[in-house]
Each structure stands twice: as C-alpha cells, then as structure tokens.
C-alpha cells in the first residue's frame, strides 16, 4: 500500500468523510435559519480554544468545544439587538474579536506559533487514528441528536409559535443546535481549519438546494456532495500538492456553481 492509498491518506479520507457526513445535518439549519454569521463566530472562537487548550495542556477537542459553547451561548444571550447595534454587526464584532484574541493568545505559545497554519486551515494529512475515532464518535453524536430533534427543529424553523403550540420548546431545540454546532467546530478544526469550517457547513447544503424538493432530500444530497468534495479534494491535494482543507472546500464550491447552472426544473 502506497501513494493515494497509503495509511495516512486513508486516515485523512476517513476524517474528511466523518466531518462531511455530519456537517449537513447542521448546515441545512444554518442555511434555512440564516445563521451563517453565527457559525463563523463560533468557528473563529475555536482559535482561542486551541490556544487555551495548549496553555492548560487539555485535549484540543475539549478546549475548542468549551470556548465554542461559551461564545455560542454569549451570542444567544445578546441576540436581542440593543445599544444601537444591529445583530449582524454584533456578530461581526464577536466573530473577529474571537479570532483576533485567539491569534494573540496563540502567539504567546512558542511551539504553537509554528502550527498556526494548521489551526487556521486544517491539517487533515496529520490526523491520527485517535483523531479519526473522535471525529466519527462526535459525528455520530451530532447525527443522532439532530435526527432525534429533526421534526421539532424543522417546525420551529418554519414558525416558532407553531412549535410552541404543538407542545415543543423551540428555545430548548435552539440550544441543542448550538451545542451540536460547537461540537462540529471542535471536530472540523483539524480537517479544514477554523477559517473554513463555515464553508463546510454552508456550501454542501446550499449546493444541494437546486436538487431538492424536500428538506430531507436536501440533507441527504448535502451529505453526498460533502462526501464527494472531501474525497475529491483530498485526491486533488495529493495529485497537485495543494493544501487539503482549501481543496475540499474548492470542490464543494464547484459543485455549488454547477447546481446553480442547472435548469431550474426542480426549484421547489
């Protein structure tokens, strides 16, 4: 076994597939609920999480998850616009604030400084079997939780009061979505890096839209597009020696563009 099918490539492919199959479960809701900025802010907070985990000598997944959860809850608490600043501007402040403070924190760590690129753009070729196990375990948890809350999340996406009147609790479900998002960020940082996590959330889901006549089809098509992007992106990266994370995202973008060019026959 060598070349494209060497062990590190298989590990990378498995890591990429795990994240690509889990991301659309959250990605569709991020797209439908227009939470892209929110996803960005949580993903950028991951850099701060990396710095803190290295300082405190914690597993990176735990540190990233912890900071992502705190940032996500802080944003949710500030959701009602006040003080003369719009919700999107506030998210912009938090998102880039988290990134800036994260980069500064990383710069205080002599060893980590060299690895900065790995956390910003991912380092999928360096994942271990342990990382693969964590990614698939986390991905299974995300899929399980969202599948369990699917109807409630879909109902409250369409109209929160409709969910309330059906005996559901949209606030509760939004918190679940937020926590799952923080978990995905923690899983994906090694695969595509903090700067491109939102791309992995949004692009496969959005690319699936022209192919889909129902929410469930859009989810499954998003998973398919994500998986193909991960594998093709890795293959391209191997063949042309391009960075792996950006290559995966680039393939997804091409899929998105092709979908837009299709005749609008199924624009349900």
């Amino acid at each position, binding site marked *: 076994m060598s070349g494209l099918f060497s062990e590190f490539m298989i590990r990378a492919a498995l890591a990429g597939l795990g994240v690509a199959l889990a991301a659309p479960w959250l990605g569709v809701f991020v797209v439908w609920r227009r939470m892209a900025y929110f996803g960005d802010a949580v993903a950028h907070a991951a850099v701060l999480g990396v710095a803190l985990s290295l300082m405190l000598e914690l597993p990176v997944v735990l540190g990233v998850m912890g900071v992502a959860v705190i940032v996500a809850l802080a944003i949710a608490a500030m959701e009602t616009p006040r003080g003369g600043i719009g919700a999107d501007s506030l998210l912009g402040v938090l998102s880039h604030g988290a990134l800036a403070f994260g980069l500064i924190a990383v710069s205080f760590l002599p060893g980590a400084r060299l690895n900065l690129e790995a956390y910003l753009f991912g380092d999928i070729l360096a994942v271990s079997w342990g990382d693969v196990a964590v990614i698939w375990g986390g991905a299974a948890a995300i899929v399980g939780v969202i599948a369990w809350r699917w109807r409630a999340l879909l109902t409250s996406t369409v109209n929160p009061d*409709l969910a309330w009147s059906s005996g559901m609790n949209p606030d509760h479900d939004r918190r679940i979505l937020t926590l799952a998002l923080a978990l995905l960020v923690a899983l994906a940082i090694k695969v595509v890096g903090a700067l491109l996590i939102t791309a992995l959330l949004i692009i496969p889901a959005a690319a699936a839209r022209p192919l889909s006549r129902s929410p469930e089809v859009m989810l499954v098509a998003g998973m398919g597009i994500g998986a193909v992007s991960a594998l093709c992106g890795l293959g391209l990266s191997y063949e042309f020696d391009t960075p792996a994370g950006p290559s995966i995202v680039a393939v997804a973008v091409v899929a998105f563009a092709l979908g837009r060019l299709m005749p609008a026959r199924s624009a349900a």
Partner: protein
Amino acid sequence: MTSLIEAAAVSAGFAGGTVLRDVDFHIDPGEIVTVVGPNGSGKSTLLRLLVGAIPPRGGRITRRPDLRVGYVPQRLSIDPTLPLTVSRFLDLPRPADRAEKLALMDRVGIRPLAAHPLTGLSGGQYQRALLARALLTRPNLLILDEATQGMDQRGSAEFYALIEALRAETGAAVLMVSHELHVVMSASDRVVCLNGHVCCEGTPEIVRSAPEYRALFGTGTHGALALYRHEHDHSHEHHHHHHQQHDERGTGT
C-alpha cells in the same frame, strides 16, 4: 362544561414595559371567540401566552388536559433555501395520515397544489394550507392570528364562512384575532375587545354598542360595520336592489 383554556388575572410584558395587565379570558368547547383591538393592544401577546410561547408575568393559565391547539400563524418565516411543498408542510409537526391529508386538502380547496412549493402560493391559498395543517392535528381549539391578511374582502368573507363550516363539522372551538372587525365579528359567538386590558366583552351586538369599543374604533369603523350588517342581514334584498338598479338604468335610457 369546563373551559378549554382559561387565563385568570394574567399580565405580560417585556423589558420595555407592560403589554397586558389583569386579563381574564376563557374559551369554551365549540365557541367562536374573536379578539379585537387596535395595534399594540396586546392581541398577539395574548395568543402567544395561550399557546405557551411566552410565560405570563402574573396570574395563571389553565389548560384542559385534553386541549389540542391547531395554530394558524400570521405568517411563516420560510427562507427560499428551504424546499417545502404544501404536502410536506402538512406533515409538520408530525406525519399525517395520507388519506386524511388528501381529504382535508380537498375540503379547503388546495388539493391541486399538493406538490406546489409553499412559498409560491397566493394569500388565500397560503392561509388555506396553514388551516389544513392546523386541522390535521385534530384540534379542539383552532387559533387564527390575522388569518385574512393579504386577502381581498370577498376572499376573507369566504375564508370566515369556511371557518364557520369547519366549526360545525369538527366541533372545534375557534379563537381569532383580527383587525377586520366588520367581517370577523359577525361570525363570532363572543367578542373580546382588548386594549392592554379587556375593555368590553360579549356578543357582537353588545360589544358594538359598548362605549369603550366606540372610543377605540371610532366612527370610521362603525360605518364599515353598518355597511357589512346591511349586506349581511339583508342579503335577499341585496339582489332586489340590483334588479332595481338595472330597472332604473333601463328606464333612464
């Protein structure tokens, strides 16, 4: 019989201040109740309290254990990226029986639109889809929030006629909020006039003549009311008038 839902001395508000204070409200099985009130009178807040979307600040809300609410919201927030056909929408929050779904789509007149995206419907079709979804949950209380928005007067009159017919068929109580006083009130058993508190309450006749109601809605609305009552109460004469007009025109030329 016990009320389906009962609010006792309920108050509600946000950081900005109090929206509702000391509101007593109840709805009994099979009743059609309309809540009227000017903008900002707390109508929507009352509905949100009743469906459980917000907790009351004071007082208490009692729901009968077998209460099943079929909610028809004012509008949905469906992003264009969310593919949702009429048929799939009717499966929210949980999948409905196929035969029952088809029968209900027939009943409200949207069966040909089953595979149609929800976002492409006209105002009237849209509200009928929302109504069909609410009915599929087999409610004993149907709640409609400004259901005739975006419909012309004839469309909304037809819609209210459908609501009355459905009440008779299913026995469900109906709670409506509307600003279209003249149409909606005539279909109601009871009208609650709201303006931060309950100003007056009773049969449409009683509320119409209440000074509190007149103070809120003034003479403009009263004129529209009178017009509607004329059309509604004298529908037979209405035809007659038309004939007369034709005759007059005939003799004129």
